[in-house]
């Protein structure tokens, strides 16, 4: 150790440096705390919160009961019981639709998988409950979540035959194959 280091040790130079840093934070006090229940953070528009089932503007359910969300889900959250629409054998709908939100990891794969955009992710995140069975949601609850979060509904296309499940999916973002 040379003289300079000895002087630094004897005068507690490094400790004083650290204490200066903490004191400067005390003097220039600017908290970064968000007082959570009183203040809430502005969420980004692509925030992946609670899942919801959506409706068309005439109040009919979008879901066609295709089971693709169930297949896409990595945590096996979704269970769909698909059924024919009575009197209309060509048209199907989800008779029952369950989501076990205790397992959901909010990856959004089900929303991506849905061919009719029947699933949506809301900005709700305050879903703490005392009984975890309350997180086992059925179709009515999921539709209610969708109703209260998406007041502007998608228009049902006029040329869609009521008997045909219209797959309104755009394949634009799938990369094109090189044609030789």
């Amino acid at each position, binding site marked *: 150790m040379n003289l300079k280091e000895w002087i630094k040790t004897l005068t507690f130079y490094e*400790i004083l440096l*650290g*204490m200066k840093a*903490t004191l400067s*934070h*005390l003097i220039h*006090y*600017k*908290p*970064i705390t968000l007082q959570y229940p009183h203040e809430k953070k502005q969420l980004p528009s692509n925030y992946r919160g609670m899942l919801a089932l959506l409706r068309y503007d005439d109040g009919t359910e979008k879901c066609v009961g295709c089971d693709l969300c169930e297949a896409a889900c990595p945590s096996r959250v979704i269970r769909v019981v698909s059924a024919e629409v009575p009197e209309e054998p060509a048209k199907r709908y989800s008779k029952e639709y369950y989501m076990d939100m205790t397992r959901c990891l909010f990856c959004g794969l089900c929303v991506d998988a849905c061919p009719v955009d029947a699933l949506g992710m809301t900005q709700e995140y305050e879903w703490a409950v005392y009984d975890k069975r309350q997180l086992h949601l059925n179709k009515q609850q999921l539709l209610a979540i969708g109703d209260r979060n998406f007041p502007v509904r998608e228009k049902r296309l006029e040329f869609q035959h009521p008997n045909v499940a219209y797959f309104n999916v755009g394949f634009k973002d799938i990369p094109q194959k090189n044609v030789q």
Partner: protein
Amino acid sequence: METAIRLGLTLGQIGAVMVAVLLTVALLTLLERKVLGWMQDRMGPMEVGPYGILQPVADGLKLFFKEDIIPAGANKLMFSMAPILSLVPALIGFAVIPFGPDWTVDVQGVDFKPFVITDINIGVLYILAFASIGAYGIILGGWSSNSKYSLLGGLRSAAQLISYELNVGLSIVGVLLLSSSLSLVTITNAQAGGFWNWYFFAWGSFPQAIAFMVFIISSVAETNRTPFDLPEAESELVAGFFTEYSGMRFAFFFLAEYGNMILVSCVATVLFFGGWHAPFEFLQGPESLHGLTGIAWFAIKVATFLFLFFWVRATLPRLRYDQLMRFGWKVLLPIALGNIVVTAIVEYIFPS
């Protein structure tokens, strides 16, 4: 009759000091969290009352109504005795601290000193002795809990308190050489006149600044506070020696820790910074107001030391165990011994 008056006066004084100390402890618990928060860009407690000022009340109520658990296999007698053994020495030390000028009031034929409970001529020794007994509370609490974490915390604190108590004792010796008295009242009176007479500066003799550094570092270690909080290291030992304690017993350990903090701040003020004396004579005010200004200056100095405790806690990380021991025995102890030798020589050549 005389005995009754003496008893009444003394008990009143003890009550006043106890209430003052315990209120300060309550205030400190809030202030520590607030100051730590501010230093770390947080807010500290904000929910109970405006800006969280009622937090100590809420904490106290919570501790009071919590279930008092004695763990299975614990030694019940020792387990209940340990918090008391640790709290009593922390509070009993205030008996010899002079909070204000050395006045003697005559109350119906009884000599009464309003600003010190007892002025015994071995005051410093008395405080050191009871500080050592406080270590028993911690060690017994750790041992009797029947838990590994508590036992390890107790063992660590045994080693730490023994090594650092030595440094506290030796760093005080310089002051004792200068004042040639063990009574805290005499030591305070010897530092009258201005800040250059405080033993930290000690004009005309050997300044005790180095001894003060040793003293303050060792007292941080003795009160088990960061960076020497190995006995209660949260990240290693859950909570150290009071892991198994809950309710009022836990509150006793808590009170003891903060009481010790105030006590060492008072002792540092009295020994090195002139006690109730103002840094300049004119700041002390007229003679009749010395009681008031004396207590005010004493409180300011103690508050400064308490802030230093918080400040150090916000800044420094915890020492490793071997670093702690090496620092105590190989750095602080030689410095304290060297300080005694130099002070003794200077005092012999230039007697004050």
